């Protein structure tokens, strides 16, 4: 196997990269200055060597604990459970949540062979059982599997924590009621709240 084939083969293992795209990327790298390819290779090496899951929340970090878990200004009593580490970025961009996180590492999916034991549920349970957490916000995706995972978490965590809450579903900000679909309107109605 040639070096070109070897790199294309490795690239094609990445999500969303097919054989053709992998070859295109490989030839693109060949056209680049040598230093750029070496920088990319070093960055990949450093990533593999230094980055690992945070020992508390499983967010990728270079230290024992991630920056959010180390931040004393973050509220340790409120945890937000998310499916993937990428979801933390989305919530952080909103700038509303000041608690800490727990990365589950996926969602329960019997069809894909993913059960609760494949997620970091028992670690979350241990974290919550310590007594310092007063609320867990379950922010799994609003899909059937995300809802089932949320339900499972609720059952597991309820004995240990005062509040297990679920992020709301409903009309998007800036959206138009006229163009919203039936499911969204139904969920927005069922999750309605008193006006302050």
């Amino acid at each position: 196997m040639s070096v070109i084939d070897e790199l294309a083969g490795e690239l094609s293992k990445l999500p969303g990269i097919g054989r053709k795209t992998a070859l295109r990327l490989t030839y693109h790298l060949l056209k680049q200055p040598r230093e750029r390819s070496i920088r990319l290779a070093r960055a990949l090496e450093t990533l593999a060597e230094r980055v690992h899951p945070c020992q508390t929340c499983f967010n990728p970090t270079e230290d024992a604990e991630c920056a959010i878990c180390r931040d004393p200004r973050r509220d340790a009593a409120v945890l937000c459970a998310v499916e993937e580490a990428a979801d933390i970025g989305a919530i952080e961009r909103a700038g509303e949540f000041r608690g800490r996180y727990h990365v589950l590492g996926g969602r329960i999916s019997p069809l894909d062979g993913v059960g609760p034991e494949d997620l970091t549920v028992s670690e979350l349970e241990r974290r919550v059982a310590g007594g310092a957490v007063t609320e867990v916000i379950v922010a799994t995706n609003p899909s059937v599997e995300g809802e089932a995972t949320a339900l499972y978490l609720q059952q597991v965590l309820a004995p240990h924590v005062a509040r297990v809450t679920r992020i709301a579903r409903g009309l998007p900000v800036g959206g138009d009621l006229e163009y919203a679909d039936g499911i969204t309107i139904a969920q927005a109605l069922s999750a309605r709240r008193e006006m302050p």
Partner: protein
Amino acid sequence: MPLVMTDAVVLHAFDYLESSRIIRLATRDAGLQSVLARGARSSSRRFGLGLDLFASGVAQIQLRPGRELQQLDGFDLTSSRDPIARDLERFAAASALAELALRFADGDEPGDLYATLIAALDAVAAAPGDRARDVGLAAAWHLVAGFGFAPVLTRCCRCELLLADEDTATFSHGAGGCACRACAPLLPRGRPLPPEARAALRAWTTGTVGTDWPVIETAMRRAHLRLLREFLEQHLNDGRPLRAFETWERGLGTLGAAIG
């Protein structure tokens, strides 16, 4: 490239590239289809919010003969089966049913199989929480019968002797059903099947999907699930694990205590 509009139900869905999803659909007119739903993750404009597991709708598919992955142009939701996600037993049972359909059915199954699958999923979605496992079990056997694998239950599968309702029969997976006392020792690997279990199997594999399916005792449920698993393993015979079925058999709703 013909555009096909057909009733369909989502059996499996996974993310593809940045914003698309690949969906496995069971359809009324085109059998099982794998379709690419472009942009389904980033925008609800094209497919609404309906492209989720166990949802039914009218799918618009660009069908290209010979292709393994077709293009989904639209999906108009008719039923989201929300109750399935509100109960872990229902969720696990529906996942097992979807897995059975994906593994047993090929691409050219007729519409009545689609109807059987829809009826089975509807029954699970409507089942009260404490009966979700019973109904799921019944629906799974009903589906297996719909695929043409109904076990022989009223006559000996070897000599065709009529079996008395009150008799315990020997159920042989390899032979495809029950055997009389004389034939049982001649058949491969059998399990004794008490009369009430055989009656339940008869009710589940014949007739229409119904809420009058018999209620099963907890101990019997385990035995029934084991019997079904062994029967499926015998007839699928492809060496691939039934992952959703295993999760269902273990009992997703009770795993919390086990892993804690």
